[in-house]
């Protein structure tokens, strides 16, 4: 029970009054970010990241900084449910499935029940995922301590192949988007050879592209432009929630224990795979509809239809942090931004973190428990306040959000060039979203590009250019093989169906 002791120490770190305050501040900010159009977990954290630079320099400050930022993430996950249920606008892609039954419930005048069910199942999903992280992450990290460059590269390969194979979209578009990310990551000074790459004589490109700017532009400005098309007014159901409704819903919820557990399992598993939260929410909604006794009523507004996607999405969003802290491979764009934060604060994400910075890691894990409790309390008590934010006219909120994005982009490096870049990324984000190019692979490639390349180089340097290094032992061979299996999964699936169909 070594983990339990470590976790208790983590609670000691996380329970300081200052960190508790940061938790509530983070959750409230996160919910606001999740509710506002154009701001989501990823760019919200990216915009606020520069504000933690000075905080992270104080002793123990990195733990406080990660607690603040990760709580913004939990808040944003909670906030997504509010807009889905009340306004039928999914704040995040993984909240789409929540609208199927959440909004009909709100139209039936049962918004309070839908919200309570959503928040409670989010909390349960997160809790199960955090328990998994508590016990699984030391094991994974210990395992990963033996990793060398070939193993790390094959883990990255696995991450990116999973995107191509599991996303279900157009594979060529996923690859294009991802490789653009890698190319942008390569821009600037090559640290190994000292060569300038892809700068074409422009001095402003020397430092390369910062992924934070890309995240703010792609998700922030891009989404505002997209929202504009759909119209400027938000029409929403009113958000009445009181203790009676909460207790009434809580009495109903234990009936769906099977759906909860199944969705949490789907979420935990899919969350470790990058980009997993959205498919996880759809998958568990589909499973619940098929397996539930009330399956035919799904879509007309039943509580179980809210429980299934919310539990899975929140479990997936939380477990996306497991590969981030143990391997340095983020499972979602927001986790990628958090990873970028660690790098900026001077921490090396990966298995060594557990050995060198146990306070940081266990403080973070403990704050996941506490942050989600804080989140549940805040959302249950303050829903009407947050819903009121969406009633601010778009002609006021839109320019304010763009101003916030511009400030966020500027403060990363105190550079105006970054603000111009942000607008360019905004236009790219708008066009890509409408054409069905996924944005998450680009962001992940931008974050991981340098590290993937470094490990690739070191690996083939060791083998004198022989690519068979990636199959040289059981571990690395297994990882590479799994990566290739995932990459060609759609083809394998099609072939399998063809064979079965013939019989």
């Amino acid at each position, binding site marked *: 029970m070594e983990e339990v002791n470590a976790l208790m120490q983590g609670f000691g770190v996380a329970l300081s009054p200052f960190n508790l305050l940061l938790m509530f501040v983070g959750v409230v900010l996160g919910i606001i970010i999740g509710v506002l159009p154009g701001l989501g977990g990823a760019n919200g954290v990216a915009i606020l990241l520069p504000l933690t630079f*000075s905080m992270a320099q104080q002793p123990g400050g990195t733990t406080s900084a990660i607690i603040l930022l990760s709580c913004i993430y939990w808040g944003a996950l909670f906030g997504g449910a509010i807009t889905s249920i009340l306004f039928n606008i999914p704040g995040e892609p993984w909240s789409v499935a929540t609208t199927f039954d959440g909004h009909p419930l709100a139209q039936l005048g049962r918004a309070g029940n839908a919200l309570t069910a959503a928040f409670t199942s989010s909390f349960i999903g997160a809790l199960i995922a955090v328990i998994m992280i508590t016990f699984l992450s030391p094991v994974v990290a210990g395992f990963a301590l033996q990793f060398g460059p070939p193993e790390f590269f094959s883990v990255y390969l696995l991450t990116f192949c999973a995107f191509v194979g599991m996303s279900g979209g157009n594979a060529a578009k996923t690859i294009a988007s991802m490789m653009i990310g890698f190319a942008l990551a390569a821009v600037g000074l090559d640290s190994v050879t000292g060569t300038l790459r892809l700068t074409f004589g422009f001095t402003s490109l020397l430092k390369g592209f910062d992924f934070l700017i890309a995240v703010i532009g792609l998700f922030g400005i891009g989404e505002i432009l997209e929202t504009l098309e759909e119209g400027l007014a938000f029409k929403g159901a009113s958000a009445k929630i009181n203790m009676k409704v909460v207790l009434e819903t809580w009495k109903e919820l234990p009936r769906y224990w099977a759906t909860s557990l199944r969705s949490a399992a789907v979420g935990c598993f899919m969350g470790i795979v990058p980009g997993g939260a959205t498919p996880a929410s759809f998958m568990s909604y589909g499973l619940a509809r098929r397996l539930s006794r009330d399956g035919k009523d799904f879509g007309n507004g039943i509580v179980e239809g809210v429980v299934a996607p919310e539990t899975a999405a929140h479990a997936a969003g939380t477990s996306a942090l497991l590969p981030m802290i143990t391997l340095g491979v983020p499972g979602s764009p927001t986790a990628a931004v958090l990873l970028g934060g660690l790098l900026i604060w001077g921490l090396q994400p990966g298995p060594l973190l557990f050995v060198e910075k146990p306070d940081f890691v266990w403080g973070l894990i403990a704050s996941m428990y506490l942050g989600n409790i804080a989140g549940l309390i805040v959302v249950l008590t303050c829903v009407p306040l947050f819903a009121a934010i969406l009633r601010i*006219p778009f002609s006021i909120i839109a320019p304010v959000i763009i*101003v916030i994005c511009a400030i966020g982009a500027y403060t990363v490096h105190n550079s*105006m060039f970054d*603000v111009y870049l942000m607008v360019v990324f905004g236009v790219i984000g708008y066009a890509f979203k409408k*054409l069905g190019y996924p944005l998450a692979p680009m962001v992940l490639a931008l974050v991981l590009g340098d590290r993937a390349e470094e490990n690739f180089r070191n690996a083939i340097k060791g083998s004198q250019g022989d690519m068979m290094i990636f199959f040289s032992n059981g571990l690395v061979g297994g990882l590479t093989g799994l990566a290739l299996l995932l990459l060609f999964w759609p083809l394998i699936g099609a072939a399998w169906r063809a064979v079965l169909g013939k019989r």
Partner: protein
Amino acid sequence: MEKGEQGSAASVKAVEIGVAAVIFLFGALVVFDSVRVGAKWGDDGPQAGYFPLYVGLLICFASAAILVRALRDPVLAAESFVSREELKKILTVLVPTVVYVAVIAWLGFYVASTLYIAYFMWHLGKYAWIKIAPVSIGVSVAFFLIFEIWFSVPLPKGPLEAALGLN
């Protein structure tokens, strides 16, 4: 997107082809530059262009596949990417935004932001000046307090701040 067949400003097919072509050119640029810096095996391991060369090639292959598929698809031409109406709305936001980030450099963040929010409220929201002034100035003052004073993160300032002695 369904509404705009006559009012379409661009078909999905045209945009899809255009974007794929731009991506292809970008990939070609990456390949070209990788070869320039050297994409072979050097004395001490792979050269600087070794990894980006494959990245560039994959960009070219992927965008070529998208391009070919878009050229062959008969349905895409009939679909509207953006209607004239929608495009107009987007430009009413995008153009001021470009102007806004361009003027930050000489007006400073706060004055530019005040004007930008005021323009939005006036043009899109049709508010009266009596409402526009307090909101736009209030938001900028709030940002000033948060960033300059609370978090001590300095943002670019212009002539107004200089005149007020706030630099």
